């Protein structure tokens, strides 16, 4: 066979092969959605589940519930954490020891820091008889004494969406005025968790904080000395 013929055959085979290859390539390119990385839709989805967490925190300011130093001159003296100057005329104090001078800064702020709404309960370890009168029978029987709290919603709209716990009608009284604190074990205590304060305490950035304020009515006959009280907040996811 002449070399030129051989060369021609080789060239034809090469061109045929190249044409075949071209056809295969064109076919593959036309089926673009089978190529890795080609997005058939312009949106993708990713599945991720964020674990739920119930998380609350007390934010206690430097001067929260700080009434300074003073004494009772007339029965009873009233101290509270809401209305400046935070004491009445029956409370005797000398600047710079009065509540306004020491920078009295309201009550306890409680924030829902988790990512679920919660049912909120609050209780104390003491009530008026034990905290103010130190269980003294004479003080309890004869003196005007009280240990009250009230709750304030600090949300932009409302941090607590259901303040009507017993569904009788209207928000519970402790959301608008002073009520006796709830000591653990007293009738107000729900299942050992304390007073049911809020059914649906929200976890939104703008609506997740409430404040607990306190009022003390202190009689002259109240025994002197230090008393301790623990305020406990309990949170359970609202299901």
């Amino acid at each position: 066979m002449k070399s030129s013929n051989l060369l021609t055959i080789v060239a034809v085979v090469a061109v045929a092969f190249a044409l075949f290859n071209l056809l295969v390539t064109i076919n593959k390119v036309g089926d673009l959605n089978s190529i890795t990385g080609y997005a058939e839709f312009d949106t993708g989805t990713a599945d991720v589940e964020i674990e739920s967490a119930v998380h609350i925190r007390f934010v206690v300011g430097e001067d929260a519930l700080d009434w300074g130093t003073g004494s009772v001159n007339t029965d009873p003296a009233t101290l509270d954490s809401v209305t400046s100057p935070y004491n009445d005329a029956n409370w005797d104090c000398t600047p710079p020891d009065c509540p306004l001078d020491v920078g009295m800064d309201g009550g306890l702020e409680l924030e829902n820091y988790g990512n679920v709404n919660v049912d909120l309960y609050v209780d104390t370890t003491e009530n008026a008889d034990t905290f103010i009168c130190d269980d003294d029978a004479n003080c309890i029987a004869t003196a005007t004494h009280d240990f009250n709290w009230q709750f304030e919603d600090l949300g932009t709209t409302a941090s607590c969406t259901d303040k009507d716990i017993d569904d009788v009608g209207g928000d519970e009284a402790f959301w608008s005025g002073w009520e006796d604190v709830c000591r653990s074990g007293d009738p107000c205590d729900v299942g050992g968790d304390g007073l049911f304060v809020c059914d649906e305490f929200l976890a939104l950035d703008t609506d997740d904080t409430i404040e607990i304020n306190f009022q003390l009515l202190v009689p002259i006959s109240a025994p002197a000395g230090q008393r301790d009280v623990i305020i406990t907040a309990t949170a359970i996811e609202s299901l």
Partner: protein
Amino acid sequence: MNKKKSVINFFLVFIIFLFLMEGVFSLGVSPSSKQFNFQPGFEKIINYRVLGIDSDKELSLYVSGDLSKYVKLDRDSMKGPGEFSAIIELPDHIENPGPNKIFVAIREEVDKEISTMIAVSVVVKSIIVIHVPYPGKYLETKLISSNANIGEPIKFDLEVISRGDEDLIINPKIDIFSDQKLLETLVFQERDLASQEKIKLKKFLDTSNYNAGEYKAVATVNYGGAKPSIREADFKIGDLSIDILNYSKKIIIDKISRFNLELESGWNDPIQGLYADVSILRGLNELVGFETTTTQLTPWQKKTIVGYFDATNITEGFYDANITLTYYGKDKSRTSNELVKIEFIKKPFNMMIVVYILVGLIVLVIVLILLRKYIFKKKK
């Protein structure tokens, strides 16, 4: 010195200064809840994570609730953030049908060595719900709807759970109402639902033929029970509009006066650059014009905007005021006008001042009469 004065002068010193620890007292637990369908001899280990607590804080762990005797914790105390486990081992039979709740509690212990009169403490509880089947057929449903603007679809999520011990065949539908008038029904296909099975269904409502407004969706699921399961959800269809809810109807003359305008967005997206141009008219002529502050509204938000103007040259009486609102939503701008009536009044006379003066005069006269009587008597 009389007895009363000596009592008042007698001090029983009761020094009260409340020490309260400053700072952040925080506690969290994850997961916040878990739910399981009861099966005889059910066993499960749940791992919990305690968070948001200082590393030196003591914590106590405990279980309470309906079935707490069937749950054990791998420890009953810990310090600082960390993990623990709850082991659930249920019996072959539980008496109470329905949701039985177990609480896994973490309590922050108060440091008794630190002297403080008021201390705070936090308790968080994670719930474990064991769903024990009711006898026979029992269905739970939940309906969630979204809001949208005209032309955008409204999505309905319908969650259906069989809580009985019998398998079911369900036929769900969603009726759309406006002012109690049925507009449309979205029908789902018939499905089998096994005992304790949960499914999530969805449907979309085409709102292109709907007007802006408030609507109600009613989901009805027939399952062969005594009554169908019915759930309702309200939803809104919006358009780029703002309603004037209220405005200052009475303005005091002879001073710089404040004008309040309460507005509500009827749009399911944010509205930007909203302000009002107010023109107070005498006949067809503008007496005074002013602009309010510029603001934005979130979807469906109500807000009050304020403007100030000089009312010193205005006389008493009723005037027309033209309120023009200008605002932007997505890539559209809109203006709207409303003509309202405003009354300009003089500063009202405070009747209480007269009452106080009269009472004061009467008291003074009585005091003078009494004084005169006793002085006169004494002299005699």
